[in-house]
Structures are given as structure tokens and as C-alpha cells.
């Protein structure tokens, strides 16, 4: 690997990281469920490409497997399941009323600054070429968390949860060239199983309350 390739690779990864952050903000402000799923799939695709690039530049063979896993799971399988789910649940055209998108965006920016500030000492320690992206990875995690908090419907919340996993995955790749294969496989399987279980829950929730609005769950507390 020549230094030039590494440098171009690093530049390219930085670019992809920026796209990832942008997509996170887009998800934060997206009202329509269908577009949200598309954004999620795009995030997965970016993750796939960035893992591929890291694998190519650094020659870490196991990252190719990770990349394939990401492609299969996050770009194809999960979006397909989600699409099927909203078709079956008949919420395809659901639009969510979000409270005050500008404020949410501002909070998001503050979070990004916090994440960068946080990542600074860590990325100085990390010896990887991708170290500068650690802040973005953390920011993605926090923005996804924020998205879960602001949503009222069940499906977007689950997408937020999945997006958070994307951020973690990105953080792992950028800080240490990925987690051990066993851990990665385990997490991938967890996400899949979690998705299926949550899908079952959706049907149960809708059957109970005739809606997927989780505000109905507020009744469940003890008086």
C-alpha cells in the first residue's frame, strides 16, 4: 500500500463519514416513514462502502466479511423487512407530526459538537487511518438516540434503534478496524432477531390500541 493510496483512502472515508452524518440529520427531520426506510438503507450502503474502503486500504481481510454482512443485512434484508412490515400494517403513507424540527436540529448540532469534543482525546490515541471519523460515529449514535426520543410512532423508533447500531458499527470500524468477527456476527444476529420480535410487537400494539402511536402505552403505568 503506497502512502498515496492510504491518503486517498483516508480522504474518501472522511467524505463517506460526512455523508453518514448528513443522512443522520436527514433522518432526524424526515416525517414520512417510507423515506425514512430509504434513508436507513442509504446509511447502510454508505457504511458498506466505507468498510470496504477501510478493508482495501489497510488490508484487513476480515473487514471484507463485515462489509458483506452489512450489505446483506442493512442494505437489503432489514429495509425489505421494514417495507413488508409497513405494507402489512398499512402505515405506508403515514406522516408523523414532529415537534419543532429547527429546535431538534439545533439540539443535534450541539450533540455533534459534544461528540467531537469527546472523541478528540480518543482519536489521538487510536493509531488507525480512520481515527478522525470517530467523532462522527459518536455523533451518529447520539443523533439516532435523539430521533428515538422525538418520535411518537413505533416504526420510526425502531428505525432509530437500528440507526444507532449503524453508528456503533461505524465507531468500531473507525477506532479499531472493526470488532472481532464473533462479536460482529453476534450483533448482526441480535439486530435481526430484535427486528423480528419488534415486528411481532407492532401487530400486538396495533391490535390492542388500533394504532401504532406509542402515546397509548402511557396508560400502562401504575396509578
Amino acid at each position, binding site marked *: 500500500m503506497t502512502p498515496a493510496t492510504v491518503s486517498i483512502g483516508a480522504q474518501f472515508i472522511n467524505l463517506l463519514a460526512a455523508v453518514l452524518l448528513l443522512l443522520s440529520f436527514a433522518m432526524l427531520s424526515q416525517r414520512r416513514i417510507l423515506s425514512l426506510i430509504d434513508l436507513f438503507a442509504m446509511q447502510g450502503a454508505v457504511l458498506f462502502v466505507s468498510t470496504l474502503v477501510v478493508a482495501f486500504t489497510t488490508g484487513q481481510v476480515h473487514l471484507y466479511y463485515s462489509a458483506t454482512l452489512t450489505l446483506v443485512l442493512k442494505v437489503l434484508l432489514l429495509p425489505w423487512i421494514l417495507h413488508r412490515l409497513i405494507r402489512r400494517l398499512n402505515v405506508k403513507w403515514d406522516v408523523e407530526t414532529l415537534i419543532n424540527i429547527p429546535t431538534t436540529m439545533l439540539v443535534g448540532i450541539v450533540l455533534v459538537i459534544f461528540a467531537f469534543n*469527546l472523541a478528540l482525546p480518543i482519536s489521538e490515541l487510536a493509531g488507525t487511518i480512520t481515527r478522525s471519523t470517530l467523532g462522527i460515529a459518536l455523533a451518529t449514535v447520539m443523533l439516532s438516540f435523539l430521533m428515538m426520543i422525538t418520535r411518537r410512532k413505533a416504526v420510526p423508533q425502531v428505525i432509530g434503534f437500528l440507526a444507532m447500531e449503524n453508528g456503533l458499527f461505524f465507531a468500531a470500524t473507525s477506532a479499531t478496524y472493526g470488532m472481532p468477527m464473533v462479536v460482529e456476527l453476534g450483533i448482526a444476529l441480535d439486530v435481526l432477531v430484535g427486528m423480528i420480535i419488534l415486528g411481532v410487537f407492532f401487530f400486538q400494539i396495533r391490535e390492542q390500541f388500533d394504532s401504532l402511536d406509542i402515546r397509548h402505552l402511557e396508560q400502562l403505568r401504575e396509578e
Partner: protein
Amino acid sequence: MTAGAAWLPIDAAVALAACWLVLGAAGLFAPRNLAYVGRLLFPLGALVALLLAATGLAALHASPQVMVLALGLPDLPFHLRVDSLSALFLVLLGGAGAGISIYAAGYFRPGEGTAPGLQCLQYHLFLASMAFVMMADDAYFFMVSWETMALSSFFLVTSDHRIPEIRRAGYLYLLIAHIGAIGILLSFGVLQGGSGDYTFAGMRAQPHAGWWASAAFGLALFGFGAKAGLLPLHVWLPEAHPAAPSPVSAMMSGVMLKASIYGLLRVTFDLLQTQLWWWGVIVLALGLLTALFGVIFSAVQTDMKRLLAYSSIENIGLILVAYGLAVTFRGFGMAALAALALTAMLYHCLNHAAFKSLLFLCTGSVLHATRSRSLGRLGGLIHRMPWVAWLALVGVLASAGLPPGNGFVSEWLLLQGFLFTPGLPHGYVNMLVPVAAAAVAMTAALSGYVMVKFFGIVFLGRPREESLVQAHDAGTLERIGLTWLAALCLLLGLAPVAVIGELDRVTRPLVGHGLGEAARAGGWLLLAPIDAARASYSPLLVLAAIAAVFALAVMAVHRLYHRRVRRADPWDCGFPRQTARMQDTAEGFGQPIRQVFEPFFRMERELPSPFDATPRYRVTVADHLWHWLYLPIARAAEFGTRLVAFLQQGRIAVYLLYSFFTLLALLFFIR
């Protein structure tokens, strides 16, 4: 050494406790089969108890033995040890357990609470865990057995769990048992002193600095006191004892309370190397309060099992008074007097186990015969149930502390101990402790009053209800159990010299002195614990004198007066329409006490108006401590949990916010 000689008492004791476990498990094969459980398993359990008592006696004469059982967690085996203190309490457990088990064999009726087989399991688990508590030689095994004891007895207490009050009583019992267990656990934590060695042998070897020793003692007192019914922690006792089936009440009051006394002795005199005199004074004061409180409250009860439960509190108080005295003497280095107080205490443990089990079992028979626990509905039962009545009389005499009974011996020994307190080398203590002797004497007198009330209202007079005519006497198995316990009472009352000779083996390792020689010096007939010139007691002479006076009086009445029995109506005060309900009631009998000790009670009274056609009189006597101590704690706990409940908003977004902010804060502070 032959194989037979290698069979030590500890092996036998462990094997017998394991037999109890097997018997309990056997109850599950046919849980509803009353004949199988009642006629086979429980009598076998009684046999095991008898053998355990014999084993305990053998162990009392042998040197301490240890054993390691490779059960439990890996690398953490159970250590067991039987020394003279364990042996004595094993004798107590076996002796009382034999009577109670054989009684329980005849006690079960179909359709009462839990299935008999299940009760058999819980009961034998309870017995075995108590045996293991007395044999445990490390904190881990002790706590496992201790908690098994608490849980199995909880299930026994709540065997009639369909009744809300019983569930409530069981809950209260479990709660206080667990709070106490925390105290014990912390005490062991202090005792191991940072060495990480939780065996009792390791704790004995630890030097304990003054304040740490005091902390260990205080925690042990709290923990074991909660189980024994020490004053502020006594509230579960009058609730749980009446709730439980009678054999279980007998077991809990007679034996389980002693298990906590055993634990207290083990920690203070065995695990701790030094005893400070002021510990003894604190326990003395608390024990005195407990005794007075118990006896005063038992005087105003109208439920016979509650009355006995409060009387148990009183007896535990007396035991703790003796214990406090022993610690005080020991703290001042007066070994002989410490041995005297300790002997009085151990003697009273044995006595209370015998007579309180007997009395509780008698209430069980009365309850089965009449279906009533309320004293106001009983009366005149001596004609219908002569066996129970006469055997109860033995227990009542013992409990009242009257001379031929066994209660007298221990109370007398205790007062003997008090007579030496002016010799204490501390100004205030030697002036104040004799005052305590007066309070002990008053407790003894009042307990006599209570027992007259109990026996008089239940068995004497005329039946207060029509239905009492159908009352039947106890069955054969129940009679055997009652007779066994009554015989124990008589034995303990009439052979004090022999008993003290055995207790000598217990006190010698604990305080380095014993009463055996001094007691034997006066011959087997005369008990003189310190010096025959100071005080002595000969139970057989007293018995002979009482019998002689009684016989003379009977003869004098029959010979000199009119030689025949006349039956006539009593004087009716000019009011001919008298009914059995006009006899003195339990409320009436307790009224003077209620009047005299009014500030002690929290009373609510409803008096009928003179013009009421169907007058009803109601009085409830409650405990100030419940309102002053427990309710504020309960309210504070409820308030605290309400504050916590604010966290539960029901909105997922809020819950997510909690984790989000936690995450941010952690990231911020721990980066």
C-alpha cells in the same frame, strides 16, 4: 479404632437431620394421604427427634467434633461443629421436637389449609434447618440454614393462606426475619475482620478491637433479637404465633426463639474473645423492658394464643435479662457469677421450650375441640377435656414460676444471680441492677396472674357457650405428645441438680466456670448454687410438703367438717336468673392490669349505653410502639417510593431521555 468407635455424635446428628429431610420429602409422594403422613411420617419424625436428643446428650459428654461437608458451592464447603453449647440446644430441639411431632401426628384434620404432605415437608425442613443452625461452623452454612428456617416457618405460618390476616401476619414475620438476617450477616462481616475467612474457627482467631467488637455485638443483638422478639422488634410474634397451626406455634415459640438465643450466645461468648460489661447492661435493660411489656400485654389478651405469644415475649425477656447479667459479670471478670447467670439462662431456655410448647399444644387441642380461640367463648373445659386440662395445669404451674414447677428453678437461680450484683466493681451498675431484680420479681408475679387467667378462664368455671358441651378430649397421639412435654417439665422441675450438672459442661467452655460441683455438694436432693448457707432449694421436699399440706387439708375437710359431698346452688346474690355468661371474663380478669398500666396501652373502647337492648362491649388494646415506630417508618417508605414513582411517567420518550442523559453524563464525566 473400630468402625463403631469412629461413629461420633456429630455424624449421628447430621444423619438424623438428613433423616428429617428425607421424611419431609417423603410427604410429597402422597400429600393428601392423611394416614400415611400422620400415622407414619410424623411419628417417625418424632422418633428421629428423640434420637437427636439422645445424640445431643452424648455430644454433651464428648469433646467438640468438627466435620466438613463438601456440599454447597464449589470451594465453599459446609463446616459443621458440635460442641457442648450446640449439643445442649440439640437436646432442646430433640426433646421438645419429639413431643410436638407426635402431637402433630394426631393433629391434622382433612381440609385444613395446606395439604398434610406439603406441611410435612415444610415442618421437617424447619426442624432440620434448626438442627443445622445449631451445628453450623461457618457463616455461610449458618446463614443458609438460618434463612431456610425462616422461609420454612413462613410457609408453615401461612398454611391457612386464604385468610387475609394470616397472610398479613406471615408477611410481617418474613419482613422482620429478613431485616434481622441482614443484621446477622453484617455482624459476621465485622467478625471476620477483613481476613475473608468466614469459618467460625477463623473468626475466633481474629483479634477484635474494642469498637469493632461492640459493632459486631450490636449487630448480632439486633439480628438475633429480631428473631427472638426483643422489644422494638417483637411485633411479628403476637401476629405470627396465633396464625400458625398449633404444633407450629409450639415449635416456633418453644424452639425457634431459642435458636436465636443460641446464635447470640455463640457470637458473644464463643466468637468474640472479649465481652464488655456495658453490653450486658444494655441487654439487661432491654430484656427487662421486653419481659415487663410481654407480661403486661399478655394479661389483657382475650385470644388464648395471643396471650401465650405475649407470654413468650416475656420469657425471652427474662432469658435476655439472665444473659445480660452473665455478660456483665463476665465483663468484670467474675467467672463464677457469670456461670450462675448463664446457668439460669440456659435452664430457662430448656424450661420455656418444655412448658410453652406444652401450653401451645393444649390450645391446639382446645381449638380443635371448640373451634374457638377466644377466651370469652370457652370455660369449664376441665370436665370435657380432663387430659388436656390436667396436663395444661402442669405447664401453667411451670410458666407461673411456682415451686414444684420447672419455671421456679430458673427464676430462682436468676434472682440468686441478682443478689450478688452489689459486689460489682462499678458505682452506678451495682446500685441500679438490684432495682432490676425487683422488676424481674414483678414480672414473675404478673406471669402467675396471667397463667391463672389462662387456666381459670379456659378450663375452670362453667361453659360459656352451649356448644362447649360437645367438646371432646384430645386423641391418643396428641395425649402422648402432651404427656411427654409435661413429663419434661416435671423432670426439669424435680431434678435441678442433675440438670445443672449437665449445664456445667456448657458454661465451662464459655465462661470458664460451672455450677456443677457446688450444686452436687449438697447431694442430689438439695440445690445450693453458691453456698448452702446462703440459699438452697430442694424441689422434692417442697413437693412433699405441698402434697402433705394438700392431703391434710382434704382429710381435715372431709373428716372434721361433714364427711360428705353436698351439691347445692351457690348464693345467687338475690338474682336468680344467672347464666354461665355472667362468669368473670377474660376482659374482666385483665381489667385491673389494664387500669394500672394504662399508659402502656393504646386502647379503644366502645361502651354500651344503659338503654341498649343488645349491648355490645368492645375494647381493642394496641401497642404504642406500632404507632410510634413502625407506622412512621412505613409512611416514610411509602413517601419515598412515591417520589421514585415520579420517574415512571409512562412515556417511552421520557424513559429514553433518562438513558440519553445518563449516557451523556457518563460520557462527559468519565472520558
